[in-house]
Every structure is written in C-alpha cells, then in structure tokens.
C-alpha cells in the first residue's frame, strides 16, 4: 500500500496493510524523523512498516510520507521521547544494519505506549540500539585514526599548481562519511584534501565541504616518497619492550590493515621484538654513551691541545677545536666555531664568541651582529673573503630562558683557556694587523683589560709587534636606543675606517 492509501486508515487497517517508507538516503535522519511523526500520527504500528533507502532500490514506486499528510481528524498525542533517544537514534541510523530504521521506530512506538520502557536499560531493543550506536561511534573513531593522506600536485581552479591535494582512501564499516567530514574540515582546514570511500567521497577546498559519489581504490594515488619517511619513523619509534599483540589486534583490527602503509611493518617488527630484547639482555649492561671528556688543564705558556701537537694548518686547527673541553662551555654548545676567511689575510677581525646562529651553523658572524659587520665591511670596501674573521672564545656560552638561549659573556678563565687557539690562528694566518671587536677580544689580544670606550678607534701594539685596533663589538650597536643607532653606527664605522686604511695600504704595498 502506498502512503496516500493509508491516510484514511487510522486504526482501521487490516494487519496485512503494510506501509513502505522510502528514505532519501541511508543517512537521511531528517527524513526518518518526518516519517516517524507521520507514521505515529496515523498510528501505523512498527510491524506494518517496511523501510527502504533510495540508495538500495531502483525506481520510484513509493512516496515518503511528508509533514502535510501527517494530520488527521482525531490527532493522536504528540511524540515524546527521553532526551537520550535523539542522539542515540542519530548515530544508530548510520549503522550498516538494514533493520536499524525498524528498530528505532519500534523503540519510539513502544516508548509512547510503555512508560516503564524509559528506565528499562536492559530491554533488548534499547540494548540493540545502544550497540548499534556504539559500533558507529567506534567506526567514526577508527576513521579519524586510520585515514592516511597522500599528496598529489593538482592544478587549482585557475589552472595554477598550488598547494598539493591530499587524497586518502578509506573503507568505513558504516555510513559515517557525512558525519565524520566536519572533523576533518576542522583538523585539516589549511589543507586541500579529499577522502574517497566506496560509498561516498568528501572533498575540502579550504572553504567548503563537497560530497560526491563513491570511488574505487585505484582512484587514490599510490605510495610516494613521503610514505617511506613515515615508515622509517614508524620503524624507529617501535619499542620491542612494549609490544602488546592482543591490544594491537583489538585497537587496530586487521580489516583496516590493507589501507595502512605501516601495517606491513607490524609483522617483521613484532617477530623480531623478542630477539631484540634477548640480544640486549645477552649483551649485558653497557655504559651510557657520552662524549669523551678531555681532562688536560692548560698551563700558562704551554697550551695543550687535545691532539697533543699544535695544529699545523687552519684546517687541522678547526678540526681539533671540536674536541676541545678545556673549559666547561664546550660541553653544552652545539659545536666549536673556528675562524673563516683568507689564509693570507692582511687583516684579522676578532669578535667575542659565537652566538645562537653561529653555534647552529658553525660559522662566525652569521647572526644579527654578523649582518651588521657585513654591512660595515661592504661600506668600507673590504671584501669579507679577503680578511680573516674569528672569535676570542670558540664555543657558545648561553643561559636557557624558556626555549631561548640567551648569550652570556665568557668568564675570564674560560677566555684564558681558549687563548692558545686564537694565538695559533694568528701565527698561521700571520696578519699585519688585527681588529679587536669588544672588550673580551681586546683583553684576549692585549693580555690585559682594556677600556674599550676610552681606547676605541686607536691602534695599540701587542707584545709580538702586531698592531691591534680597538673598537666596539657590533652586538653593542644592536642594543643602543633606536634614536641613537645611526650616530653609534657612524662612530663605529669611523673606528673601522682606520682598519680599512691599513687594509688598502698593505694591499697597495704588496
């Protein structure tokens, strides 16, 4: 019988009068609610209703009862359900079980007629609806966990190659694609992505979700290089001591494995886990790996290098620097930073110590102060590669503040321990003159504390006869008040001009 035939059949239909309700889709919750209200209004008992989805059948044989035909002369009481029923029905309706509509309508029907059913949590219909809802929620959860995207380069609407499109293939167990889509839109808002499933596909273009028909597995892109990275990561974080096979099988059921790239690693990793643990036990305890600490203390006048001998070249010197632990700074720095520049430089610039950037890159004067120095050298027409730039102390000394490493001035002892490296650099490069940038460099080069502010812009003479120009460290300029910056820089440039004169004069004499 069709819906219009039943309009006048309130309470009078024969038992054989079966009503067929056809929903727009498997997840048409609004249509289901409408149909339920209409069926209740006509007092059609659940046994007399057959539920169908447009997805399941071909042809248009039946009408869905709408709101309009829901009214009848003697209107039955309005539908009342407990608050928990609606969310339960909303998720249970996504289940694959074709009986779900009938079950939920029967529950609704019985809730109207049997008040005690509200509290009867052990009723089979309640329990079944709960179980359906739980299956759906579990499937939603698994989809959130097991979707794996693969990027492809795809031109956007204007034909330009923009951000890659991430495509994933997933086979959900229930009709959850529409329900889970908002989660992915929130989680990957900035990405363009598409999720293909056998029943439906979703696409997110950065602004709106679009749903399309189902797809085939081979429409999703194959494995790419990024996947190798993921597999390497998965292999590396695997902890043989924490392998729980039963939990693994329960939380990552095998039917998901065929679409999970890492699944192929599980078996080899699992089968080697015990062996790895056993090998470790058989090998016995070992000492923790630490960087070798070198003990020698420098004695004044007899600098000791870790290698024993004094390095014969700048390359050897820079290599030997790396293992220097003559003061505590070296233990915490990323690396030692040696000098850089021409091996026959006529001018050597000596700074204080590497900073954060220098420590990471392993080159002197590449941070903000380095950029200021580069600018000054350029203005003075001194090519950076024709001078030698180094530091008085070779390791970065810092203090951790949160995640930032704040520069700390090296102590006098630490500078003294580093002195032999600088002296050897001076011997090897043999520059005609040096520039001491800042107080630490000045003290290191002159062997005594120098007042930089009093002596700046003047040439002093070292005990070995080399001339040393004293001036500020460029980082001092970074710290002056903004309005004074230009003047401070001009004064500093004026100091350095003396060095430029030496540079060009000695260059002309050669």
């Amino acid at each position, binding site marked *: 019988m069709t819906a219009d035939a039943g309009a006048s059949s309130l309470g009078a239909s024969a038992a054989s009068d079966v009503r067929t309700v056809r929903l727009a889709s498997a997840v048409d919750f609004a249509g289901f609610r409408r149909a339920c209200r209409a069926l209740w209004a006509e007092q059609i008992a659940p046994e007399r209703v057959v539920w169908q989805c447009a997805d399941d059948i071909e042809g248009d044989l039946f009408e869905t009862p709408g709101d309009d035909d829901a009214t009848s002369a003697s209107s039955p009481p309005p539908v009342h359900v407990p608050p928990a029923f609606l969310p339960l029905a909303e998720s249970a309706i996504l289940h694959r079980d074709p009986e779900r509509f009938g079950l939920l309508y029967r529950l609704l029907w019985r809730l109207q007629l049997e008040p*005690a059913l509200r509290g009867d949590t052990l009723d089979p219909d309640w329990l079944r609806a709960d*179980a359906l809802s739980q299956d759906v929620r579990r499937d939603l959860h698994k989809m959130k966990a097991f979707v794996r995207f693969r990027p492809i380069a795809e031109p956007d609407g204007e034909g330009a190659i923009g951000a890659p499109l991430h495509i994933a293939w997933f086979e959900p167990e229930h009709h959850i694609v529409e329900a889970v889509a908002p989660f992915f839109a929130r989680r990957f808002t900035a990405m363009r992505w598409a999720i293909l499933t056998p029943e439906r596909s979703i696409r997110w273009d950065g602004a709106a979700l679009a749903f399309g028909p189902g797809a085939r597995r081979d429409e999703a892109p194959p494995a790419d290089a990024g996947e190798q990275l993921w597999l390497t990561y998965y292999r590396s974080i695997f902890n043989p*001591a*924490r392998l*729980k096979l039963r939990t693994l099988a329960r939380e990552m059921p095998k039917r998901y494995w065929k679409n999970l790239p890492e699944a192929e690693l599980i078996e080899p990793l699992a089968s080697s886990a*015990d062996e790895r*643990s056993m090998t*470790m036990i058989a090998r016995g305890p070992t000492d923790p790996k630490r960087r070798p600490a070198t003990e020698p203390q420098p004695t004044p006048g007899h600098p000791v290098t870790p290698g024993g001998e004094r390095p014969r070249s700048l390359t050897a010197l820079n290599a030997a620097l790396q293992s220097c632990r003559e003061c505590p700074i070296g233990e915490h720095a990323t690396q030692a930073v040696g000098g850089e520049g021409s091996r026959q430089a006529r001018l050597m610039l000596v700074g204080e110590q590497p900073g954060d950037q220098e420590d990471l890159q392993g080159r002197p004067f590449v941070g903000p102060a380095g950029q200021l120095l580069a600018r000054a050298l350029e203005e003075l027409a001194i090519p950076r590669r024709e001078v030698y730039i180094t530091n008085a102390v070779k390791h970065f000394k810092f203090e951790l503040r949160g995640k930032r490493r704040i520069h700390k001035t090296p102590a006098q002892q630490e500078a003294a321990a580093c002195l032999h490296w600088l002296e050897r650099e001076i011997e090897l490069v043999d520059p005609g003159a040096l520039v001491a940038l800042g107080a630490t460099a000045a003290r290191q080069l002159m062997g005594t504390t120098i007042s930089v502010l009093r002596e700046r812009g003047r040439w002093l003479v070292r005990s070995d006869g080399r001339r040393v120009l004293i001036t500020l460290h460029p980082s001092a300029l970074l710290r002056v008040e903004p309005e004074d910056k230009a003047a401070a820089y001009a004064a500093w440039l004026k100091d350095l001009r003396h060095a430029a004169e030496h540079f060009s004069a000695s260059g002309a004499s050669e």
Partner: protein
Amino acid sequence: MIVGADATSDATILATSAALYGAYRLRRVYYSAFSPIPDAARALPLKAPPLVREHRLYQADWLMRFYGFAQEEIVAPGGMLALDVDPKLAWALAHRERFPIDLNRAPKELLLRVPGLGTRAVARIVAARRVRKLRFADLERLHIPLVKAIAFVEVADHRPGKSLAASDLARRLAAAVHPTPSQASLFDFAAGEPQGALSSSP
C-alpha cells in the same frame, strides 16, 4: 610512575597514588612499565617487567577511584598484585563470605564489588531493576564477562549455591578468564593461535 625499574612493590606504588588522589586532589596517575634501552645506566635492569603488571596497577587504580575500594583492601602492605587474576576477582575470592550478592536488592556500593560488573553495567542494573525483576537472561544481554560475575551473584532464577565455596573456584575462574595464565610470550605468539591475526593481509 615508571614501574619495574627498581624493586618498589605494588603496595607502595598504590599507596603513593592513594596519597596523590586523596591529599593532593590529583585527577589521574599513569603507570608505565619500564622499557629498557641499550647503553642506559648500569643500575637499570635489562629485562622489561611484565606489561600485565602495569595493567593490574591500572585496574587497582580504577578500583580506588570508581569502585569504592581502599588501597589496603586491594593489596597487603609490601605485597604485589597477582598477575594471573585481576585485583577485583582476587579480592572477591578472598572474601567469599560476602557473596553471593542479590542483584535485585543489593545497594550500588555492593554491586560495584562484584567481579565482572563495571560502572556502566552497575548503572544499567540499578536503572533496570526499578521496572523489572532481573533474570539470568538479562545478564546475558549485559555484555559482561559472565563467567566471572555469575559465580558471585544471584538473580531471580539463578543462585551460585555451593560452587562459591568450592576450593577450586579460583583456579577455574583464572583458567576461564585467561586461558594462558602468564602473559603471552612472543614465542607463543609466533607458534600459537593469534598468528592468524598477524599474518600479512593479501
């Protein structure tokens, strides 16, 4: 808390947790079985403690937080939790005189002490028994480990009778709940039944 790197007993660990929950209003304590790594300190063990110990500690922790158990009830001072039975079943076996519990009449606090009944099952029972008299068939629909629970409860058409006092109850239950009493080793795994679950997919 990292478990199994030293000789600390489960009783000490749970007492610490109880103090953290009680005195410091901590919301949650986590337990993690120690995993050895190569080239660690010599004082650390090379063999991992059984992972099931971590699981038992979590079960005991839940008993303290949601089931009204006191820490001293779960484990004797200086003692360890049994690895073959869960702490609630162990407690019930040691206190058989308090059972069977009538699911149709007993207060919620006692229902929570029945092995196999979780907080959700108890809430369901309490709600359902207002409108119906619980029968064995109702329990079957509850999705609970019936083997464990049925030995300790009575409903309209079921009484455990003498089986509760039987001396082999502990052994029978342990065997029913965990077919292999110790934690499954990987060698068992490679040779035995769960292999199907791991062979690679086509």
